[in-house]
């Protein structure tokens, strides 16, 4: 394989590993669709930050997008609690609105924003090797470094928050009864999901983010009964999807992101099938 291929695969694998970790908790907390909503809702933030800063790698971009991710979850809360709209509809109304706003902004400023509608959906992972950054006297793809940094952050977060996340996902009421500040924990977790979404957005696009958050974790949950094995397996499935996806995309000459999701989906459905066909113990 060429070095370019490796760059793409490793970037995909790092992002898949980060999302698999966070996604495991999203799945266990039954908040998968909230992740879906956030991944759509960061779009207007990204576009506005683009317009203001005029470049793509800027902290402003990060802040803008992370802000709109949190804004989306606040909007959902507001519609649900204060306007008394049922929860599923609050999610649906909020994210479609924000996403439509993002698309309109993109089309209104076509010349100025280096984003197009398709890139929003399935990213530009194929261009990873083109976006090089000087690193001493070697050149590495910038998205690869971003993905590596993201993975590091998520890993550290997992190490320090493992017990808290476990407790919060299993029994939030009990956590609160222990005097643990569940609101803070919840907010931090949502902020991590937003951050991951934003960093991964331009590399893999909105849809792949949702898929990578949910599908490997769901597949791993089918196979395991303990939390650490579940997370490890989810990460493994994510990485595997990155490899398989690259291969499939080169054969079909199609979108790498789409192929990665398809491989993840294939793993999910075969797991489902195997689980159904093998008789259960107990």
């Amino acid at each position, binding site marked *: 394989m060429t070095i370019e291929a490796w760059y793409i695969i490793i970037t995909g694998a790092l992002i898949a590993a980060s999302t698999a970790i966070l996604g495991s908790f999203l799945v266990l907390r*039954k908040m998968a669709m909230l992740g879906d909503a956030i991944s759509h809702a960061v779009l207007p933030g990204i576009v506005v930050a683009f317009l203001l800063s005029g470049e793509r790698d800027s902290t402003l971009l990060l802040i803008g997008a992370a802000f709109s991710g949190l804004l989306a979850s606040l909007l959902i809360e507001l519609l649900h609690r204060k306007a008394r709209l049922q929860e599923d509809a609050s999610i649906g109304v909020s994210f479609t609105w924000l996403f439509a706003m993002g698309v309109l902004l993109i089309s209104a400023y076509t010349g100025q924003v280096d984003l197009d509608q398709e890139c929003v959906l399935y990213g530009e992972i194929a261009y990873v090797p083109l976006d090089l950054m000087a690193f001493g006297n070697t050149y590495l793809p910038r998205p690869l470094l971003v993905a590596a940094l993201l993975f590091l952050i998520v890993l550290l977060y997992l190490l320090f928050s493992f017990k808290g996340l476990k*407790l919060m*996902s*299993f029994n939030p009421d009990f956590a*609160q009864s222990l*005097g*643990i500040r569940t609101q803070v924990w919840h907010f931090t977790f949502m902020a991590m999901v937003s951050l991951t979404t934003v960093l991964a957005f331009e590399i893999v696009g909105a849809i792949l983010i949702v898929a990578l958050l949910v599908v490997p974790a769901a597949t791993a949950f089918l196979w395991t009964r303990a939390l650490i094995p579940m997370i490890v397996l989810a990460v493994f499935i994510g990485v595997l999807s990155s490899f398989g996806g690259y291969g499939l995309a080169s054969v079909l000459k199609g979108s790498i992101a789409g192929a990665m999701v398809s491989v993840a989906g294939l793993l999910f459905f075969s797991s489902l099938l195997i689980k159904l066909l093998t008789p259960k113990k107990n």
Partner: protein
Amino acid sequence: MKNKDINKVPSLEVHNLAASYNRMPVLWDIDFQIPQGVLTGIVGPNGSGKTTLLRNIMGLMKADSGYVKIFGEDLNKVRERVSYVPQRESVDWTFPASVREVVEMGRYRNANLMRRLSKTDKEKVNIALEKVGMLEYANRQISQLSGGQQQRVFLARSLAQDADLYLMDEPFVGVDAATEEAILEVLSELRNEGKTVVIVHHDLQTAYQYFNWIILLNTRLVAAGPKEEVFLQENLREAYGGRLTILSKLSNLIAKSEFPVREKGFKETEGSGDGQS
């Protein structure tokens, strides 16, 4: 304060507590005290607000009025002395965790959440597992437990907290006779150690037999006290004889017309609010 006075402090004082969901009142000015060292049953029909009462005591929802004192203090000051066991159905038992992991949660505190558990913590977990007879299942995943075993796990987690006041929501639901007896034994043991146990319980038949203090609830407090004084035909009929129509009508009126559940600026705090009109 002298030692004798400390013993006189009620383990739990609920003062004029009122609570609602989306403005619909479900608890009307609940007011009772429980002395230390009794085994208490909170008894009432379905939907009578037993769970809501426990959640309010544990500060899991915001009361409309009134306050709760535990050993004469605010909950936050004595949190380490209180253990709460939620209703078994309130969690998803397919969650990927082992029995030991769940019981260890009883030792979690803000301070040690980012660190490993200490040796003493782990010992307390083992003792708790032993007491409920789940030590040999310690490494089993909770998705593989029977209903009765799940209750035992929750009980063990509570024991591991090593508290002085235990609040348990329906620990006898879904268990067989043997487990029921085993759980009761553990609870009696706690009481013999001078601890206070408060149990939400469904079954009138066994309530009299199990508890020595009883609280009869049906959105309002019907009676509270030693079981002999509370367990009267008249009280039981009142508790199980349906809601008071006036209360129901008023509840609906409040929920429907955006009335405040409690008047603004008239939040009762300790020591105030007993004024004349």
